[in-house]
């Protein structure tokens, strides 16, 4: 073991500056796979004279194109554009490499901390800039979670969590508590991160797939269901076959509004019309929620009686004796407050709480 730690294992003792440092990124002699690949690429580039297009300056390349009789003007323009793009890409890559201290960017295969497990890889986390931006979008500019999630390509629950955590962070700063900054910097430099570059052409990098459809247990079975050839058998019908109450995928995804927007777009509505329709739909949803709330309040006022006492108010409400829960001692059960003994000392009863409010 000590031989290995002094030899190939030496690379893991310290983090690689600004890059992840997993086992699968190295060969068994402790050499970085990707640095070798890069060197080979450079060598072949030089051998074949490839990549000179990018290296040489714009003027000489344009000159060469002009001399080439087989090209039309359009071709020349396209080629110039391609050169420009390639140059920009090369420049961005070089800059990034420089930022990482000379180590090239990780490839997908370098991101596996467990070399045997092909199905697991370290996925990027949100960078500090992106977290800050999400917090600003939600709590300062007060955009709703759904649209922020859709525009930044981050899961809705993650956006909500980021806002929660950022709020705690701001609170700590206000109280003057010390944040674990050095720890945070060190950890984030070891992990792959999703960047947020506000002043570049491509500011937003999607973080994760946002429309994840959970595999419903009802859909795990294989069903032989004969249908006539002429029948338009859609996703909705298929869902009905699996289970009478199962909704189709279009409605079970977290952001069904994206499907609606896309449908309107395919239907030939222009941008403003789509926006107007979206606004109208949002308003309808809000009104519906408000009506529901009003109905609930009205129901409470009708059924819940409050009798003012001298020191306390007595509340009377309807109780169903059937609602006693799975084990007969549910929180809503009638006997819960009146002398129901605790069983937490009994054998086999687990005392660990199942939820913390």
């Amino acid at each position, binding site marked *: 073991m000590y031989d290995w730690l002094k030899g190939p294992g030496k690379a893991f003792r310290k983090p690689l500056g600004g890059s992840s440092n997993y086992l699968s990124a190295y060969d068994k002699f402790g050499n970085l796979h990707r640095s070798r690949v890069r060197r080979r690429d450079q060598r072949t580039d030089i051998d074949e004279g490839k990549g000179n297009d990018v290296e040489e300056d714009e003027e000489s390349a344009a000159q060469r194109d002009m001399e080439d009789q087989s090209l039309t003007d359009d071709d020349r323009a396209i080629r110039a554009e391609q050169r420009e793009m390639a140059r920009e890409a090369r420049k961005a890559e070089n800059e990034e490499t420089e930022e990482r201290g000379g180590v090239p960017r990780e490839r997908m295969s370098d991101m596996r901390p467990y070399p045997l497990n092909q199905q697991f890889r370290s996925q990027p986390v949100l960078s500090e800039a992106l977290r800050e931006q999400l917090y600003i979008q939600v709590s300062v500019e007060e955009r709703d979670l759904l649209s922020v999630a859709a525009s930044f390509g981050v899961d809705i*629950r993650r956006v909500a969590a980021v806002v929660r955590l950022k709020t705690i*962070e701001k609170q700590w700063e206000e109280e003057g508590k010390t944040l674990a900054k050095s*720890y945070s910097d060190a950890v984030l430099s*070891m992990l792959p991160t999703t960047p947020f570059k506000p002043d570049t052409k491509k500011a937003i990098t999607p973080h994760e797939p946002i429309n994840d459809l959970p595999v419903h247990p009802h859909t795990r079975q294989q069903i032989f269901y004969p249908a006539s050839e002429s029948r338009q058998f859609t996703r909705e019908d298929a869902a009905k076959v699996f289970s009478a109450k199962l909704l189709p995928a279009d409605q079970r*995804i977290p952001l069904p509004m994206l499907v609606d927007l896309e449908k309107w777009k395919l239907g030939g509505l222009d941008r403003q019309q789509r926006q107007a329709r979206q606004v109208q739909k949002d308003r309808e949803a809000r009104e519906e929620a408000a009506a529901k709330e009003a109905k609930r309040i009205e129901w409470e006022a009708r059924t819940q009686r409050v009798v003012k006492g001298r020191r306390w108010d007595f509340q009377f409400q309807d109780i169903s004796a059937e609602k006693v829960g799975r084990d007969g001692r549910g929180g809503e059960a009638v006997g819960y407050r009146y002398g129901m003994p605790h069983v937490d000392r009994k054998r086999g009863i687990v005392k660990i709480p199942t939820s913390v409010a």
Partner: protein
Amino acid sequence: MPRRFHGLKKPKVRQDWSRETLYNLSRLSTPGANYKTFFQQKWLAKSLARAYHNPYVREGQWTRMFDRRLPAVVSMNHQYLAKYDGSEMASGRGMGLDKEPRTTRGREDDEWGMAGGEGDRDRDPVQRSFDGRVEKTPYMHMTFYPLERRLDTAIWRALFASSVKQARQFVVHGWVRVNGKKMIYPGYQLNPGDLFSVDPERVMFATGARKKNRDSARSDQDDIEEGEGEGDEEGIRAAKGDQEQEIDELAGEEQGEDSDAGAATLEPDEEREAMTTKPEDEVDARKAMKNLVVRAKRILEDSKRTLSGKRQQELRAFAQAVKKTMSKYRPNEPEASDGVEDLEAALAEIMTRIPADDLPTQSTSAAQSATTTSAISSNSEQRDPDRIDNYNAQKDAALLSAALARARENPIDVSKPYATPWRPRQYMSAFAFIPRYLEVNQRVCSAVYLRHPVARPGLAEVPTPFAAETMGLAFNWYLRRR
């Protein structure tokens, strides 16, 4: 708990960041099925898997938690859902029309409104499923997903502890809160949306380099690293004088480290000079200041990358140098027991004396202030106080104060239970990843358990070191009828 937890004869991969685990991980292989009955294969697979997946949970407890229904998701493409209602799947032989071979796919890509040159790998799984080519969902890797719900495992996965056992200890000792309430049960099953937080001091202790002994802030890690550095630079150092040796050592190691990382970036001569000369020996105030600024720049540049032990030492040396320089060029002030705070105050003073914007009207006031105390304005005394000089001085002072602020953020403190200035413990980077079902804020050492881990085509979210075969055998072991 087995007596040989990190045994090397029968290697087991454990949930921790130790060098033994790293070594075992590097030589882990899928056990062969030769000369083994199916039962033996399953036994071996489950014993390997359970040695990793929280062996502190008793086997009976785990078998009660085991669930053969494993969660999965498929990510849907809203463009596809909007365009097709699903009936197109009924055409052909019942799985949609046969697709043309991949070489002639340009036309269909256009139909999708996508860029023609986009590679097949970058495309959405839904579109790939539409082509009839879909990656398998690795269900078997999700076998141990109920254990990922446990509080101790989640703390370790969020990189707040160096092993599950340590995470468990943190919980039992009351350093962990769930939704703001103290939780002392490591077996608490997190619910989606639960926020758990660990005391930051504990996290720094768990993930930081270990102290050598009670009374020193250094760690053994430093000694090892220094030993390596010395080996590399032996020849060079023999030629140097004794006095400069200390600072040279820092510079030399720096180079050694750079070449380690595969980044052969040589320092410019100017920086070398700045590193080797001691500022307090410098007669010229201007030159001393310049040297300091060069070092400050280097430190700040460095802060973008990771901060290794040697860099931290450099930072310390830098702070001392600043202190000495300051005391030398401000003789009318008493020699106080300066902390970094005093230095910062001094810098702030310098900053205020130099005009913020370089208007010619203000340069006269700068000339007046130049006669008073500060080192930088004494430079401007020699020449006419012109705009560029002021601007430079301003920038230098800003740089210095930024570097000092950084030094103050991570100070040396012997009273801490970890080596200071804080740096990650050795071998941490090989284990550092955060699965997607957690959202972590490292600054406040808190994390949210977003959802239960799921499998998706080609990717399982439960981190496990074993191959698909091993996990499949282990899953089979835990089925009721095996």
